[in-house]
């Protein structure tokens, strides 16, 4: 039988061994760091009703999303030239005017279609995208959309060389005047 004193000594020796082992495994370290400071940015973003919306034109068939920020237009192409002046309306719900342009970002089978897509307000127009002989060119020219005004997307001189379906996806870029702030809406043309 060990005495109480012996047990205490053994306990003490055990703690000492643990302390030494800890020191051995984790020797004293030096710490270093880099001084830095921070700038703080606190943005607040709110969901709001779009200041520009897309509305059905009188030509072709349009499908609009819930908030009228995307559209898909189905347009009939034939082997005779056709012009659709009012394929889609772009409507400002804003007290300030802005600028609008079309930018192609995807297409399929455009070689069978010749057409010119324009923006117009019944008085003035701006050529935006031309498809001819399988080539696509775009002007990247802005067209003014007056405050609370309406402009139209027109498809001019549309003709197909063969039966089929052509998809043309474009962004409708609306830009706040004199800024680089813009919103992209997606518009899909389906030429059948």
């Amino acid at each position, binding site marked *: 039988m060990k*005495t*109480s*004193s012996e047990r*205490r*000594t053994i306990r*003490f*020796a055990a703690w*000492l061994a643990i*302390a*030494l082992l800890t*020191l*051995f495994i984790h*020797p*004293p370290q030096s710490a270093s760091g*880099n*001084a*830095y*400071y*921070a*700038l*703080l*940015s*606190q*943005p*607040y*973003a*709110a*969901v*709001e*009703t*779009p200041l520009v919306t897309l509305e059905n034109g009188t030509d072709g068939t349009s499908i609009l*999303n*819930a*908030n009228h*920020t*995307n559209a898909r237009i189905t347009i009939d192409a034939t082997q005779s030239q056709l012009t659709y002046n009012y394929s889609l309306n772009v409507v400002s719900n804003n007290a300030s005017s802005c600028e609008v342009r079309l930018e192609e970002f995807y297409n399929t089978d455009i070689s069978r279609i010749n057409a010119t897509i324009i923006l117009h307000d019944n008085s003035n127009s701006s050529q935006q995208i031309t498809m001819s002989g399988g080539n696509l060119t775009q002007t990247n020219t802005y067209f003014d959309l007056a405050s609370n005004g309406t402009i139209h997307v027109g498809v001019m001189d549309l003709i197909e060389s063969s039966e089929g379906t052509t998809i043309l996806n474009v962004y409708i870029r609306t830009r*706040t005047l004199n*800024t*680089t*702030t*813009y*919103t*992209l*809406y*997606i518009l899909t043309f389906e030429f059948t």
Partner: protein
Amino acid sequence: MKMNYKKSLKLITLLVSALLIGTVSASVYYSLTMTSTVSVATNDVYFVLGADNETAGVSLTGARNTTATISSLKAYANATTTYSDPLKVRNNATSGTTNIRLRPVTLSGGASQFVFINFTLNDGATTYASLNYTSNGSVWTTPSTTSFVQISAPTEWYVTIETKAIDGATSASVTIAIAVDIQ
């Protein structure tokens, strides 16, 4: 019952010796003495207003534009809105480079109406850092702190912000605080 003080004393001596040995073992150190004088200096890197600051509602505060509040960002349903130049980060040093990074700080506001809010640090051609907060329709995914990148002096980089709300979005708001760490 009596304590064996002699033994305890020996053990304590042993422990102190072990500590000393552990502290100085295996490395030979020398030291330099440094006397520091700390004075208040101006920060070389700070915010400046971008060309679109009015559209985005940017205001700068702090002794030297160290805090930017952006209060008029809009997110529209199923449409991506880009604020290309609401705010800039300027390195106003005369030479050399400085390391900077973007770091998420706080976020408050529901995720159900948003698709993403993306902050990028760019020079108009190259994106150097990005914090893209994305929503799965119920919760936000907060991005990780970016790596440090070097901004030359003197240079200004754009803080570009992109927003998008879900189709059918009605009304919601979110406040996101991000830090630009300067090393």
